[in-house]
């Protein structure tokens, strides 16, 4: 069976606003960098298929797919759009190459939330129109309810969530792609405005504009395009129920199932030992803890303690979100997953600059589709083909 590698990454962003550039120009810039990174590949003839990940309501277009080809070099070529998180797009690209019909696939995702005037109304529009929408309110109250139940059931604490904010915003200071790096401590977090009890304002990732393009290749061509390919060892995705009335509020079951699928493919039996570092969804502070536990990087109720003991810091035994996560880099809508993935690739290549981790061989990237979904995806990557 052929193996699949990531041979190119290109990023533009992340910034709180980007009035100087259109989404097309943003995508062109990210794509140009990715093709350059993949051995200066020419997309007009060297890329076999293209995938974009986009959601019409985030873009403000019906059938947004049609606005994609030009800026990726995909005119008159083979392209489709995946509506989902961008790691689900990665899984799709991975499978395309696995079929044997494609040797190179370009995967694109971007977010330009600064173009959206009514961001939370669009999130509300994702809620059930019969049962939930008529109640009104800001949809992020869903996160407040989940945080409350998660902390209550697992024994992780309010202060440990605050430590996530301090760590991730701190990590982001050495990440040039990050929009919201800052020196904050637990006290600053606890003094932040209460927004959705027990969630404070500073614990909610802020929207950011940016785009990422990833080039995938089969083992047949990977090393020709990049002498440091990063191998995709496994991918997984899963959905729990959309029902807010009946879903599990204490655990991220979607992430657990997605991780089990990816680990099985990657041959990982004991993630807490075998995984060297992870980039996980931290749209809200507590999500990092919840996702660490779902990914079996620790036992239930232990994630907060590991955070408190510094285990998840850059110099710790199990660094989590060395990039700064979304709390530090910003929330780029559907590109969130590729934002996680890009950091795993850079770390495994040894190109993460000041925040470079030492001796890393296996990294995990995990995404969540955000409020009000219970869908997530996981990718396991390694710099060893093995």
């Amino acid at each position: 069976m052929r193996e699949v590698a990531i041979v190119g990454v290109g990023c533009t962003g992340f910034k709180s606003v980007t009035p100087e550039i259109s989404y097309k120009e943003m995508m062109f810039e990210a794509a140009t960098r990715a093709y350059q990174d993949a051995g200066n590949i020419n997309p007009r003839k060297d890329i076999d298929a293209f995938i974009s990940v986009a959601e019409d309501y985030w873009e403000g277009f019906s059938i947004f797919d049609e606005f994609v080809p030009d800026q990726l070099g995909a005119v008159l070529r083979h392209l489709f759009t995946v509506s989902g998180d961008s790691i689900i797009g990665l899984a799709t690209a991975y499978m395309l190459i696995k079929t044997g019909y494609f040797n190179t696939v370009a995967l694109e995702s971007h977010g330009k939330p600064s173009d959206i005037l009514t961001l939370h109304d669009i999130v509300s529009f994702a809620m059930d129109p019969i049962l939930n929408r008529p109640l009104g309110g800001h949809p992020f109250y869903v996160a407040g309810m989940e945080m409350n139940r998660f902390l209550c059931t697992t024994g992780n604490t309010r202060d440990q969530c605050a430590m996530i904010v301090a760590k991730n915003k701190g990590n982001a200071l050495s990440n040039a792609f990050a929009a919201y790096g800052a020196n904050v401590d637990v006290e600053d977090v606890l003094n932040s405005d209460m927004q959705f009890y027990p969630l404070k304002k500073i614990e909610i990732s802020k929207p950011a504009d940016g785009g990422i393009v990833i080039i995938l290749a089969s083992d047949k061509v990977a090393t020709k395009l990049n002498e440091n390919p990063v191998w995709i060892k496994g991918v997984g995705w899963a959905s729990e129920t959309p029902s807010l009335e009946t879903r599990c509020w204490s655990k991220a079951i979607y992430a657990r199932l997605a991780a089990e699928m990816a680990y099985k493919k990657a041959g990982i039996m004991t993630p807490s030992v075998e995984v060297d570092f992870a980039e996980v969804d931290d749209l809200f502070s507590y999500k990092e803890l919840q996702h660490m536990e779902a990914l079996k990087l620790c036992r239930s109720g232990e994630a907060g303690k590991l955070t408190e003991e510094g285990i998840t810091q850059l110099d710790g035994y199990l660094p989590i979100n060395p990039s700064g996560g979304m709390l530090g880099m910003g929330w780029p809508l559907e590109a969130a997953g590729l934002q996680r993935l890009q950091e795993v690739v850079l770390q495994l290549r040894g190109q993460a600059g000041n925040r470079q981790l030492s001796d890393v061989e296996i990294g995990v990237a995990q995404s969540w589709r955000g409020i009000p979904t219970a869908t997530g995806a996981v990718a396991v990557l390694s710099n060893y083909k093995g």
Partner: protein
Amino acid sequence: MSEKIKHFPGESLKGRDIREGRVPTIKHRPNVKYLWSAGVAMSRFLEGLKKGKIVGSSCKKCQRIMVPPRAFCEECFRPVDGYTNVKDTGTINTYSVSYVAGDASRIKEPILVAVIDLDGASKGMGILHLLGEIDDWKTIKFGMKVKAVWKLPEERTGTITDIKYFKPME
């Protein structure tokens, strides 16, 4: 009813039954609003319209003058080399006569729409716009020469409607 089955069992519903609440439904009007950044190429285009000019962009590699302008050449996948004005005259590439308005209502005075290959732009490139000052649409011909009719400078706002329509050049 189909050809074979004349009567389905049960009670048939009319649109009125739904509108008048005899069938349970739920109504929601989303509040979705956007303010797109026009970006490098489209900002030049819109600023050009305000000045009564149609701006294109050029690629030295494929030698095309592209309208509407873009920041990159999608054929060659490289940044464009510059921006240049094209003429506000051109020829009709294709057209249609629309007897239906935006709200799907029937209209007596049809809306004339056309894709116009602009003079100075590469073949097959130009503008989609309205046609005007045409008494009988049957006089519209493929390849017919047309010219932009602009709003007064003080009325222009930097939008595609700064051009009112294109009219025949005779």
